[in-house]
């Protein structure tokens, strides 16, 4: 799963199109189902915040009233309070982590479900092999990146900021000018932290970009290893370019390292400044007896409280940016609306006879005109072969009947009902389409066939297989029905996949069968199995076959020759051959050896 790594590396990047405000508002809406938990979390967070703020003050009391006065009872009293605070803090901390984690997990869960559901509802033009990597990254990486920030992150930051306010209050109530002196470094700290945040983000992005480049370089050379090994000159070129790239990666990483290495010392330096102020000014105050030593020690504690949320904010900033970038991708994806949608009052329309009619169809694809007023009709029980050059619109025709696309204008009718009236279930439950490239899922052969009709029993599956004459094929597989198809289906041959895909279509017992024949050539044994199965599959059904094989064409009652989205010829095989038109020419080309064979094979019979 090579794409995965590259996608992961690409997660960060590019400026955003949607404003942060909108994205955050959108994210908050995802918290609605967890309203109560969220409110509870905020309450818990507020309580633990006040405890945080109180504890340095208790230390102050301990020192001033206990230790400095030599009051042993007071020492024990405040120590017990400190222990109570620690236990309370533990409990609250745990509750906080637990709640925010739960909310987080639930949100991730809901979002993944939603995105997957949405993906299933998309038009087929939106989802394809090319986009697989992006889709996976969307559901795995992006959503995970969002999760942390929306709950724990946001609430941490919130608490951090409130802690600031709380400690300010306590500090000011203890001593005004010392407080002012302590917080005088805050602007500097904010500036430094903001600067570092920006530098970090830039550095981080650069390293991600380089890593992504490096990853796709490796991906290319691994997936293309067979090709590159076939070309002798490639090795040196490839090694050199990889060397250059890893060198660059190293340099970018080191540059980022400089920024990262700067963070701790710079923030420490600023913090020290506030300590120095405390020591010199505060120490003098203590020395002159204006404040107690306890106050000074408490101020240390509060200065620390200032320091921590600011650091959190610094690191949070880049996480937040990455999360918002991820949010935007999910947001934009969910905004894409499918155009082919089920009618509002979707109903089960029974296909009784299986008459298909396409009336005056106009259809564009990717800006290219495919059909301009196509009319096409198939009678119940008729077998029609559609032939023609690549790009003539053969597959599009079948896609329109299955309502994978809607025509720009014109109507697709089945038994006189517009396909738009059908519920998806009724249309696709009664019409079977066997695609050109058979697709099997990573599951057993049995389950793969059963996908044609999830309600079918094992027995029914076996029966269909027998009817199609495929028992031998299944018996020939390593674990028979239980053979697990490897991802991508590589462990069985194309022909076998095709046959399983036939069984799947048959299991549906469709009124109408649409078959897009595979172009790739098969060996003659599989070919003959396929041929026999096809004949059985087509029996008593209305069939449209996008045909590439002569043998298939001959099974058809009628042949339709499609070119540039128009029907240019129509009739039986013999009719069309005698016409000497486009079909005859194609036939000649494809089976150009035919006349010769005839004579030769006769010869061979004689010898």
């Amino acid at each position, binding site marked *: 799963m090579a794409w995965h790594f590259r996608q992961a590396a690409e997660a960060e990047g590019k400026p955003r199109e949607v404003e942060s405000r909108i994205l955050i508002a959108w994210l908050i809406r995802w918290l609605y189902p967890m309203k109560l938990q969220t409110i509870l979390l905020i309450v818990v967070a507020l309580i633990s915040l006040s405890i945080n703020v109180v504890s340095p003050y208790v230390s102050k009391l301990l020192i001033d009233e206990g230790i400095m006065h*030599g009051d042993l009872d007071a020492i024990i009293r405040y120590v017990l309070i400190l222990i109570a605070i620690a236990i309370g803090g533990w409990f609250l901390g745990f509750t*906080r982590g637990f709640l925010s984690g739960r909310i987080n997990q639930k949100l991730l869960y809901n979002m993944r479900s939603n995105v997957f559901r949405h993906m299933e509802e998309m038009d087929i033009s939106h989802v394809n092999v090319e986009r697989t990597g992006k889709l996976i990254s969307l559901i795995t990486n992006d959503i995970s990146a969002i999760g942390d920030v929306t709950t724990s992150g946001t609430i941490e930051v919130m608490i951090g900021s409130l802690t600031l306010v709380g400690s300010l209050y306590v500090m000011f109530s203890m001593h005004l000018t010392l407080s002012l002196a302590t917080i005088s470094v805050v602007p500097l700290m904010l500036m430094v932290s903001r600067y570092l945040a920006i530098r970090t983000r830039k550095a981080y992005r650069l390293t991600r970009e380089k890593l992504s480049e490096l990853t796709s370089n*490796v991906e290319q050379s691994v997936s293309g290893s067979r090709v590159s090994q076939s070309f*002798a000159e490639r090795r040196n070129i490839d090694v050199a370019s990889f060397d250059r790239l890893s060198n660059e990666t190293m340099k970018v990483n080191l540059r980022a390292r400089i920024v990262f290495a700067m963070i701790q010392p710079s923030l420490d330096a600023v913090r020290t400044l506030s300590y120095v102020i405390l020591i010199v000014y505060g120490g003098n105050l203590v020395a002159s007896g204006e404040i107690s030593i306890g106050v000074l020690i408490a101020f240390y504690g509060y200065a620390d409280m200032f320091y921590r949320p600011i650091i959190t904010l610094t690191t949070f900033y880049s996480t937040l940016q990455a999360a918002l970038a991820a949010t935007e991708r999910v947001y934009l994806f969910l905004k894409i609306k499918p155009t082919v949608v089920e009618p509002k009052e979707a109903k089960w329309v029974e296909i009784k006879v299986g008459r298909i009619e396409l009336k005056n169809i106009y259809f564009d694809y990717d800006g290219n005109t495919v059909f301009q007023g196509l009319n096409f009709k198939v009678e119940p029980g008729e077998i029609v072969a559609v032939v023609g050059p690549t790009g003539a619109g053969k597959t599009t025709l079948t896609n329109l009947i299955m309502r994978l696309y809607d025509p720009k204008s014109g109507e697709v009718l089945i038994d006189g009902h517009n396909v738009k009236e059908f519920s998806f279930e009724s249309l696709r439950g009664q019409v079977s389409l066997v695609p050109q490239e058979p697709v099997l899922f990573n599951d057993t052969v049995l389950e793969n066939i059963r996908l044609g009709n999830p309600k079918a029993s094992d027995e029914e599956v076996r029966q269909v297989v027998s009817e199609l004459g495929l028992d031998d094929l299944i018996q020939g597989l390593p674990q028979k029905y239980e053979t697990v198809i490897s991802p991508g289906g590589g462990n069985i041959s194309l022909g076998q996949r095709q046959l399983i895909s036939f069984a799947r279509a048959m299991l549906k017992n469709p009124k109408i069968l649409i078959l897009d024949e595979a172009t790739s050539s098969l060996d003659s044994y599989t070919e003959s199995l396929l041929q026999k199965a096809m004949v059985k599959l087509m029996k008593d059904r209305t069939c449209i076959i996008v045909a590439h094989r002569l043998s298939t064409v001959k099974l058809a009652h009628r042949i339709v020759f499609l070119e540039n989205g128009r029907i240019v010829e129509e009739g039986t095989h013999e009719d069309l051959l005698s016409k000497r038109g486009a079909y005859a020419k194609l036939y000649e080309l494809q089976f150009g050896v035919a006349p010769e064979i005839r004579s030769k*094979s006769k010869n061979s019979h004689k010898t």
Partner: protein
Amino acid sequence: MPNNPKHPFRRILSYVIQEKGLFSGVLILILTGTLMNIVSPIIAGRVVDITMVKASSDLWLYALAIIALTLSSGGVSFIREYLSGVMSQKVVYRIRISIYKHLQDLSYSFYDKVDAGQIISRVTRDTENIGGLLGFALPNLLGSIITLAIVIIILVTTNFRLALLALAITPFIAIVSLSFNRFVRPLFEKIWKEISGMSMIIQETASGFKVLKTLGIEGEMFKRFEQKNREIYNMGLRTVSLSSLTWPSLGLIVGIGSAVIYWYGGFQVVAEEITLGQLVTFTMYLGMLVWPIMSIGFVLSRYAEAMVSARKIFEVLDTEPEVKEQPGALELKCVKGAVRFENVTFGYDIDKPVLKGMSFEVRPGEKIALVGATGSGKSTIIKLIPRFYDPQGGRILIDDVDIRNVKITSLRRNIGIVHQDIFLFPISIRENIAYGKPSATQEEVEKAAKAARIHDFIVSLPEGYNTVVGERGVTLSGGQRQRIAIARALLVNPSILILDDSTSSVDAETEKEIYESLKELIKGKTVFIVTQRLSTLKLSERIIVIEDGKVVEDGPHEELMRKGGVYARLYMSQYASQEVEN
């Protein structure tokens, strides 16, 4: 695969040792940095005591000391971080290059067995893990150990009883740290596994989207997805309950620990056994004990992770290429193109021979078609010619030289091959065609493209030859891809051209045109064509029929037809329907 008995860590150290200077520099900086950190609680304690005796004039001195200390320790930490970064990045770089070079040398049999994603993560993620170990985790570990040791010594020597109280918390911190690594980390790994299972469902859904829709199995797929989703959720919850215990527990331990120290130390202060400043120093040291103990736990798990990565990396590096160049191999000059198989036996799996004593001879310039049922071994034959695999028995000669005695690059330079599964790189079409000869001129590229009957299509694209193929560019049909691959093979102008079922997705008309235009280009070259389409066979002068790993028939089309053997039967069966009609 020879087993290298050395522990992976020692092998990584051998890379580190190449950076001796950097390595010792980092060590020294860790030591000085740690010492500097340890001084600051002492200063803080002194400050408290000074303010108590109201000798405020000395405060400036301490303030200056603190500033100096912060700046210098900041400087040290900066340099240390940077140098350890340089060291680890250099090691990462070196490991990467050696894996990459090794990957280039590994044979087909290696790529047959492994998953591309796995190899990619060897070069990226696994090397980064090692980089993380060297650049962050190990320096951290050393720093932690030194800090712990020194802090404990200081505590124990200054105030033994108070020290015992302070140290009483360390086992608890260790327990928290260990249990986090023990219970929470494995959960993360499980979640990661489930996520890749989920990715596969998404991938299947996306790549089989049309089938999904036409079968109407959206609900079925969603159910599968939800199952994974729910498992991830449940495991996430478990992680949450465990990990949300970790931090608060640490807070609790430190909180109680310092309260107890205040209590006992407070009594000591009252009894004037110690000063308040010393008490403050003590509580600060208590805080300094937490991180090192925690980080030792983290480092250990990072170490384990990095070792898993290292093992995987070395596994690749220790894999010997099956096809190896002989020492003193000769340079194969421009060949005439005679190919001879002498009793060649070969199986991808040694127990399941595919070729069982294959012998045939091809004269320079001959056009050969290899015919046979699926699994008969015809594709295997042509993979042996460029030495993608080596036969287990017999030998293969080109121009009467055993191909095992020549340099692999010089052998492959003479052979152009179009594979059955076409792979194009996600680069421009031009670069794809010129892949084997990046220095090719535009004329050469166009000439090859014209011969492969793809030029017109390419120029019809808005960006012409600069159009990028794949995810970020155009999606090409199977036939277009095949034609580009043919152009790619033609461009290097090989003496031997191999077309492995290379026009299966091209429509009949174009296929005919391709062969027409090839005629001129392949004059004098030896050509092997593996095909299922009989119309293609007419172009070859001689047909070799393979059955069950052996040559069963060999001769021109007419001769074999007359013979009425395997070939004739095969031929007839494909035209069976036609026969019926006539």
